[in-house]
């Protein structure tokens, strides 16, 4: 009986590992990412990561997160920077590259696991959805507008400005 429980559990675990893919990378490998140097004629976009909204809702912020020092005083995790746009890059591709390049922590859920068929960004720089109130989470703006599609479906074009913002009230933001 008890052995059965363990066995079932182990099988489920194995299954989970298999379907979530099995690409393992060491830490160094992972962060060894190049953001191409900007040459003239390259298409570029601007990216910024910002959590300033937390400052106005500081009382809702998770205590351990507040104590950890991962929330910068000015709310700027990554100041607006210009990066090379590769052919077919989506908003998410760029985020992934930028965070890896800058060694900023980022966790996402793959497109296959979300209901809307796009990647979902759960947390950046250890700041997660629900870290600052029940409606909080990461969203992105392109040229000051919230797009209708997920970040991994939005293909960027030359000169776009992508802003990743942490809002403490996603409902109100719409």
């Amino acid at each position, binding site marked *: 009986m008890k052995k059965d429980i363990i066995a079932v559990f182990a099988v489920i675990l194995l299954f989970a590992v298999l379907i979530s893919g099995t690409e393992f990378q060491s830490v160094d490998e992972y962060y060894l990412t190049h953001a191409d140097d900007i040459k003239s004629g390259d298409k570029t976009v601007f990216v910024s990561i910002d959590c300033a909204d937390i400052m106005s809702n500081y009382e809702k912020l998770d205590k351990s997160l507040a104590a950890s020092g991962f929330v910068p005083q000015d709310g700027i995790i990554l100041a607006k920077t210009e990066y090379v746009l590769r052919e077919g890059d989506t908003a998410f591709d760029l985020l992934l590259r930028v965070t890896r390049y800058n060694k900023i922590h980022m966790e996402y859920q793959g497109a296959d696991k979300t209901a809307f068929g796009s990647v979902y960004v759960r*947390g950046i720089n*250890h700041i997660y959805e629900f870290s600052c109130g029940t409606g909080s989470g990461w969203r992105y703006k392109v040229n000051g507008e919230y797009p209708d599609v997920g970040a991994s479906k939005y293909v960027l074009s030359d000169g776009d400005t992508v802003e990743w913002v942490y809002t403490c009230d996603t409902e109100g933001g719409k």
Partner: protein
Amino acid sequence: MNGNYGKFASLHPLPAALHMLFVIFITMFSQSPVMLAVSLVGGAAFLLTLDGAKRVFSDFWFYLSFFLLIAITNPLFSHDGVTPLFFMNGNPVTLEAFLCGIDIAAMILAALIWCRCFSIIITADKALFLIGGTAKKLALVLSVSIRFIPLMKRKWRQIKNAQIALGYYSEKGLVAKLTSSLRVFSALVTWSLENSVETGMTMRARGYGAGKRTNYALCRFTASDGAFTAFSLVLAAFSVFGMACGAFSFDFYPRLSPSLISSGDIGFVFAFAALSFAPFILEVTEAVRWKYLRSKI
């Protein structure tokens, strides 16, 4: 009462049940590794005195693999934490998540062990007695039904054997087997009805429904039961207060809390330790006292 067990088992079921429920409750709502260790060790020590080393160690591999599985599962699904060990499909697998997994595993294991102790100490008739205090009818119905289960099982086997000997189960195939079982079942139902009519008659003959019922007090609430109730109530209340103050919480994400326990919370640790180890200490002192008495004889 429980002949094989010691002092704690001979307590009135109410304080015993209350005490263990408190510990289980507090354990389930704490994250602090110190508190969980206290609960886990206290529960394991108590279980050792109840079940004996042999029995517990035969289950050891179950507990260990259970523990490891949970500990490993957590970092697969939780990627927060400042110390990535490696990356899996682009998501970090972190030391913090792994430690948090161990912590959760310890919590579940501790709760599991206490539940096991609970089921050993609070036997079916003690549980019925506890229910009987508030719901007399329900307790009686349960008692009557519990008796009926082994009876029905035995009867099922007897009827089935009799029918096999008559050649009823001989056809191969699922449908034939099923119809055979159905016949046995219908016979069993008839028998149970017949039997319960007779039982009902016996109940009436023994005065059921003749007047107001009282309940047989299986256990008496003694002064030491009262003392133990007070003891566990006070400590549990103090611990819950500690919980409200955050003494039982511990942060894993994004970065581990700087110290395992703050100096201000030491008092709560001692309170919870006293609560968790009380059953074990009661059992052991009893055993030691026995040894001592025997050596004098």
